[in-house]
């Protein structure tokens, strides 16, 4: 507390911080970026380890024998799927019942706010089929879920086959202490959403579904299986869920441990692990893996069917079978054994997975970066905002001319009252206007789609996206400097106050975002913090306006699209990138209305208005 109470030291510290503000800010920014890039460097990361005792020390044997039969069931399923042209409900029910499960169905229907052009659906109607294997050894208070999607075309037939095979095999084992629910969901996430809402008696998105007839206990963990070929070369683990939520790291550890034990190649973000961390290519490989995770997490959308489980406090992951041109092949029996092992370990759980980390980034499947290591990278960026705010505060509280005489000092005091009213108004107007623009950006695209379709030759999806872009651009052109009407010329004091408010607003906003979804917070901070730091009305207008637009949220998204494609080693032309950008916007809006993803409202209602405030400061005079 010496620093807070000793006036001399305080003065020294504050003068140091204000004098060296810009250099410190630049150093902080570079240090933040460097820290972030250093996270992927293997000596700075931690090895993953199993924290949960119930899963770590117990031995299980995997004896699943019937891979071939499972594949045959898969082929049968595919034939029935083709015949009915959708989910073969009758056949699935019959088969599941024959395996000795309690079988139930759930119907659901949902009309999307506008047609989804990526998946070609608008009015969705479907059925989920699930069978419950009742636990023979314990009261039925807890459950595990294994799900496989019933996808259109030839996809995922093997997954359903393996699911049925495992159901039959599990039925004959006596050691199950938790109910196991085998779920085949139609229309991927929409079906999953309907099933989860039905299971938990909630309705957050206004979907129509029939209530579930049968239930197990509270779900402890869930795996979603995606498998489209008889033989695979590697298994990929997908962790990123809704709003960037991740399952407990122990689930990933469990998967990794069994892959090691059984000898299956396993990847994360489709990237194999490499051992040459000390070489440049090894390091860049790790960076690439981690950046892919950051980009996926920042998007806030569920990257597999497991993504919606996380919202209900259920640890879940998607396991994807990949068939590439590698030599090393794995058959369905081995995958079955792997899943059997994982479920037997999960079956041993005494309480929910909670021992290990929930906030982490993974540069490879065997290494992770925990919150304590990655938060400083964000903290270094956020500190710039605080330093800037401090600088502005000092400028505001020490007016340039200071009178020695006490009597003359009273004169400005009288004047200040009216000045503060004008200041307050000139502060409130931009705040209100930019937030209203944000509200318009949030509401208008869906409201105006019909009108847009009537008047312009565009499809509904295009109409929504183009309206969003139009509102976004219109926000830039709004007459922000209304303060000129109120107080004549925009005052020095005025923009400083506005900037102080905007900087603090941004700091709180980014801090909260980074806590919920680190990746999103960090990416936004990377682009918005420089904007917040350098904008004043006195910088060269055209150049700064250009930089400001380049660093605006929409452009950040555009760059992210290209960067993501680059990371996936599928670079695209500008034309395709633009189309992808448009579809990403429509997907973002759809994710918000279908599953309640928060990224779209966050950007439109808070981040964009905040950025508009800085735009406003630039054009203050």
């Amino acid at each position: 507390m010496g620093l807070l109470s000793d006036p001399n030291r305080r003065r020294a510290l504050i003068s140091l911080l204000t004098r060296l503000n810009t250099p410190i800010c630049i150093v902080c920014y570079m240090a933040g970026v460097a820290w972030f890039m250093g996270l992927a460097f293997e000596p700075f990361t931690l090895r993953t380890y199993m924290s949960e005792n119930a899963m770590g020390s117990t031995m299980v044997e995997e004896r699943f024998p019937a891979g071939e039969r499972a594949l045959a069931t898969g082929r049968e399923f595919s034939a029935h799927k083709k015949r009915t042209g959708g989910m073969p409900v009758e056949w699935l029910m019959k088969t599941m019942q024959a395996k000795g499960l309690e079988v139930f169905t759930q119907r659901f229907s949902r009309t999307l706010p506008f047609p989804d052009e990526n998946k070609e659906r608008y009015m969705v109607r479907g059925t989920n089929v699930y069978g419950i294997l009742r636990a023979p050894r314990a009261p039925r208070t807890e459950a595990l879920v294994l799900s496989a999607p019933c996808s259109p075309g030839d996809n995922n037939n093997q997954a359903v086959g393996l699911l049925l095979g495992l159901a039959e095999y599990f039925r004959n084992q006596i050691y199950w202490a938790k109910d196991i629910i085998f779920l085949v969901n139609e229309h991927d996430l929409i079906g999953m959403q309907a099933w989860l809402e039905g299971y938990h008696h909630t309705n957050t998105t206004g979907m129509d579904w029939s209530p579930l007839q049968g239930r197990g206990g509270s779900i402890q963990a869930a795996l979603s299986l995606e498998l489209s070929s008889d033989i695979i070369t590697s298994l990929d683990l997908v962790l990123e869920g809704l709003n960037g939520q991740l399952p407990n790291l122990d689930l990933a550890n469990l998967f990794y441990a069994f892959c090691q034990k059984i000898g299956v190649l396993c990847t994360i973000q489709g990237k194999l692990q490499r051992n040459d961390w000390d070489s440049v290519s090894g390091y860049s490989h790790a960076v690439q893996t981690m950046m892919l995770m950051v980009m996926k997490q920042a998007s806030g959308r569920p990257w597999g069917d497991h993504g919606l489980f996380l919202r209900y406090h259920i640890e879940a992951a998607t396991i994807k079978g990949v068939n590439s041109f590698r030599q090393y092949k794995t058959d369905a029996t081995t995958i079955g054994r792997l899943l059997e092992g994982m479920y037997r370990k999960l079956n041993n759980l005494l309480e929910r997975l909670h021992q290990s980390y929930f906030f982490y980034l993974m540069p490879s499947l065997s290494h992770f970066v925990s919150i304590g290591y990655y938060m400083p990278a964000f903290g270094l960026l956020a500190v710039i905002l605080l330093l800037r705010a401090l600088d502005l505060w000092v400028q505001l509280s020490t007016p340039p001319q200071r009178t020695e005489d006490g009597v003359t000092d009273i004169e400005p005091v009288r004047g200040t009252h009216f000045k503060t009213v004008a200041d307050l108004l000139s502060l409130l107007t931009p705040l209100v206007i930019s937030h209203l623009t944000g509200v318009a950006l949030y509401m208008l695209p869906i409201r105006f789609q019909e009108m847009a379709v009537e008047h312009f030759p565009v499809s509904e999806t295009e109409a929504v996206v183009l309206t969003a872009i139009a509102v976004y651009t219109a926000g830039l052109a709004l007459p922000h400097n209304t303060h000129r009407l109120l107080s004549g010329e925009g005052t020095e004091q005025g923009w400083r106050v506005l900037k102080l408010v905007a900087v603090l607003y941004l700091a709180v906003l980014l801090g909260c975002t980074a806590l919920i979804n680190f990746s999103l917070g960090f990416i936004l901070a990377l682009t918005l913090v420089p904007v917040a730091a350098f904008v004043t009305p006195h910088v060269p207008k055209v150049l700064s306006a250009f930089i400001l637009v380049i660093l605006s949220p929409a452009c950040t998204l555009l760059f992210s699209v290209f960067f993501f494609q680059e990371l996936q080693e599928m670079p695209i032309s500008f034309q395709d990138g633009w189309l992808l950008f448009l579809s990403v916007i429509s997907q973002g809006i759809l994710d918000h209305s279908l599953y309640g993803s928060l990224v779209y409202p966050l950007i439109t209602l808070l981040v964009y208005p905040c950025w508009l405030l800085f735009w406003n400061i630039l054009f203050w005079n």
Partner: protein
Amino acid sequence: MAAPLTLLLLVAVTVRAALFRSSLSELISERVEVVSPLTAWKRVIEGLALLDLGVSPYSGDVFHETPLTIYLFHFLVDYAEVTFMLADVITAVALYMAVKDYNKQVFRKQKFALEADRYPLDCLELIRSPKEMYYIPLKVAMFYLLNPFTILSCVAKSTCGLNNAIIALFILSTIKGNVLLSAIFLSLATYQSIYPLTLCAPALLYLMQRQYIPVNFRRASFWWFIVQYAFMYLGSLFVIICLSFFLLGSWDYLPSVYGFILSVPDLTPNIGLFWYFFAEMFEHFRLFFLCVFQINVFFYTIPLSIKLKEHPVFLIFMQLAVISIFKSYPTVGDISLYMAFLPVWSHLHRFLRNIFLVSCVLLACSALFPVLWHLWIYAGSANSNFYYAITLLFNVAQILLVSDYFYAFLRREHHLTYGLYLKRKDGSEATLVLK
């Protein structure tokens, strides 16, 4: 001044009414920052239902408000929203009138001191002008009514608003110099939540100052006044307690209200310091730490009263802050009451040292409360430590805020006695250091 105040009241009521009608009100009334087990409207409803069934409302350990509150809402339950808005309006108007009166006295005192040449010459810039003081009462009302904390508290129908109204009326009657009403409202406030008991010290000091009774332990007049006040206070408290007994026909409410406040059995997270500490503690230390924590609220009365015996209104502000920080079930409504006083001390701004830091921390914490709650309860990825860390930070910021104002107040008084530009013995410029 009536017109701006009316306008302000209209705006405040409109905002509240709009929020009552929106879907937000249900969300807000579930927030642990806004309602505590004592003040939750849900619990009042439960108590009312039990009362209607002819069961004691205190059976079942849900309802912990006082009997008078439940009988008030027995008649007003259909007009609950209006009641809460009215309570806020009463608080604001009472504070407005009280501060107006107080400012008049401050100004009068300053005039006398100036005429008597009691201030050093270089202190003229510390003298307060009527112009700057003119808007202070309005700002106080504005700070109370438009404070987001108050609005949240009102929209959640937290009974904290009623307690605030009683305390505001107590402050008004004290400042107006009405001894009887002051004692009655103080006893009502004590009856509602015990802690305002500590406000009797500033009230006594103020009333004695007003009646020119010296604070001197050897004077009979001093003791006579204290006995008078204590008699009125205890008498009205006795009447209220007996009234509650006759209303309910049992003493159930004593353990259920006051026992609940003092022994803190409900460890639902809130913005206070108790819940985490007592959730983590070994049971056999509980009594000891309970005493330590509860004494905190009452203990500061003595040193503060000694230090601030010339400035009872500032003492009221300090006490309100101390209560809202250290009470067992604090909510944001309690904070808003003492924050309403901040404009009264606007002349201290030049001496405040940490106001920027403190306001940043308070702002950030207010935003982080719901975020960390979400991460802990809904997402399940954070845990109670995260939430408590923010609670701690929030309270540290409040303590810093209050001590900063305390320091600034004392420093201004110091300058008014010894001059603004202090010189060391060797003639160089001196600085004041707080140690």
